[in-house]
């Protein structure tokens, strides 16, 4: 393993030291409770938005803290959900009197820890908390026999759009409602060219031969649904587009919001090439692109590969998407 680390056990704490030093006016980092919050939190009268999850997915979530998006992020250990104490500290720190929305990716650990945090918030602090669980990954069958679909790329859409709704002054029920609508209208599919390497383990999580790819991966280096021979980008684009379009009808008049997301180890050159292939496939399927975003936003450490997320859009969702946002990783309109 070649990585820029000192002691693998200190990776998260030391990264937070760097994050705080890099963005002093914008972010405030509580190193004791391990909470990254916007410098001006709590914002009086505004619904607070808290998310969190394992680290290794940067810029998710700490890169999305700032006006127009998250009020706080709770980074867990690498690929491990944060703990309830952290989430409780974040919730009380950003409550501006209008309650707090928890944005939770549908992974068992995240769901259980956020559940415990919401119970503690109700018992100890009296802050009203609503939760939205993001579950957009079509690679996982949503059935009684799994823990549901995973939450992946749509987390960015939920955080941006709910963040804008909160900034407009909507109440907790309204912000939670729009967050759930974004999740319900989003679907994702991902693939990996290589495994990632977790610092504490020091070797790739899975072995992937040079001539094979893993289709249907999540964002933790967990193996995907199937392994197939490497193919040209155009064919890989089909492997992503087809299952997304067959899971939900995206041909409505409002068009779609498209995210072509890098997993951490894939250059923008290849991501734009993939976007071209995907956009052509969407044209062919009669799906009109209203907005697009290309880049590495919901990553899996150093994994090479990409994912596609589509959101069924309408005027309201697009105007919230276009609303100003000022975070370290996503910034427009201000």
């Amino acid at each position: 393993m070649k990585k820029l680390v000192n002691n693998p056990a200190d990776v998260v704490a030391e990264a937070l030291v760097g994050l705080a030093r890099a963005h002093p006016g914008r972010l405030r980092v509580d190193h004791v409770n391990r909470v990254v919050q916007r410098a001006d939190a709590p914002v009086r009268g505004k619904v607070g938005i808290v998310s969190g999850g394992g680290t290794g997915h940067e810029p998710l979530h700490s890169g999305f803290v700032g006006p127009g998006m998250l009020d706080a992020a709770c980074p867990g250990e690498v690929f491990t959900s944060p703990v309830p104490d952290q989430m409780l500290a974040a919730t009380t720190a950003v409550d501006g009197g209008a309650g707090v929305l928890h944005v939770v990716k549908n992974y068992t650990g995240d769901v259980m820890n956020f559940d415990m945090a919401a119970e503690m918030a109700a018992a100890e602090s009296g802050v009203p908390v609503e939760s939205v669980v993001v579950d957009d990954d079509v690679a996982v069958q949503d059935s009684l026999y799994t823990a549901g679909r995973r939450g992946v790329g749509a987390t960015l859409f939920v955080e941006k759009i709910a963040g804008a709704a909160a900034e407009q002054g909507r109440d907790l029920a309204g912000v939670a409602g729009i967050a759930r609508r974004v999740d319900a209208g989003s679907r994702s599919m991902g693939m990996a060219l290589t495994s990632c390497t977790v610092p504490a383990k020091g070797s790739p999580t899975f072995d992937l031969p040079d001539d094979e790819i893993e289709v249907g991966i999540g964002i933790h280096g967990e193996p995907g649904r199937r392994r197939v021979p490497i193919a040209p980008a155009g064919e890989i684009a089909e492997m992503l587009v087809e299952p997304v379009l067959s899971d939900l009808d995206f041909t409505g008049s409002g068009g779609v919001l498209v995210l072509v997301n890098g997993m951490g180890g894939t250059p923008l050159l290849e991501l734009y090439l993939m976007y071209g292939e995907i956009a052509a496939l969407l044209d062919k399927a009669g799906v009109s692109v209203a907005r697009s975003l290309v880049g590495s936003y919901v990553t899996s450490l150093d994994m090479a590969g990409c994912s596609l997320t589509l959101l069924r859009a309408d005027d309201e969702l697009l105007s919230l998407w276009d609303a100003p946002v000022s975070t370290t990783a996503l910034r427009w309109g201000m």
Partner: protein
Amino acid sequence: MPDTTIDADALGRWLRAFAAAIAEQKDALTALDAEIGDADHGANMDRGMQAVVAELDGAAGGDPAAVLKRTGMALVRSVGGASGPLYGTLFLRMATAAGSAGLGPAGFSACLRAGLDGVAARGKAEPGDKTMIDALSPAVAALAEAVAAGRPLAEALRDAAVAAERGRDATTPMVARKGRASYLGERSAGHQDPGATSAALLIATAADTLAG
């Protein structure tokens, strides 16, 4: 005839032995998790049990319920992932069931059952889902049966440990229905469950330490 009673010191020996077993098996647990999960179970449990040992070193004594409660809180605070709430809930429910009295065989058996019920409720899982419950559930049943038959605690715990190991082994062919491995569907079969593996260590170290 007065049988063995588990006091706070015995619980401390158990928890330290479990922490040592986890430290020793850390890489093996992580390797199991890499096959069907996300390769963090060993590192997470080791971080949590180190926090428990630090807690035991820092606050000596107390009644059994207090030791169990501090253990549960230390795990919830330090582990994260799914293991934190699940192992944390196990010990917190055991603490509630333990009350402030010492624990005889029947009391300990009831406590462990309360812990198991808590884990099942928190994880919304049941036997056959390929989780730690597949090791804990047969262990709790074996312990209750041996205690009801009037066998000494040491023997009853040994039965529980054997049952936990059988339950752990039985997870290998299962298709996961809960937790991160469930996202793999059929591909999760053929791999021993890491949670059931650490749970079997928990019961094995109880058999080694709790009966004096």
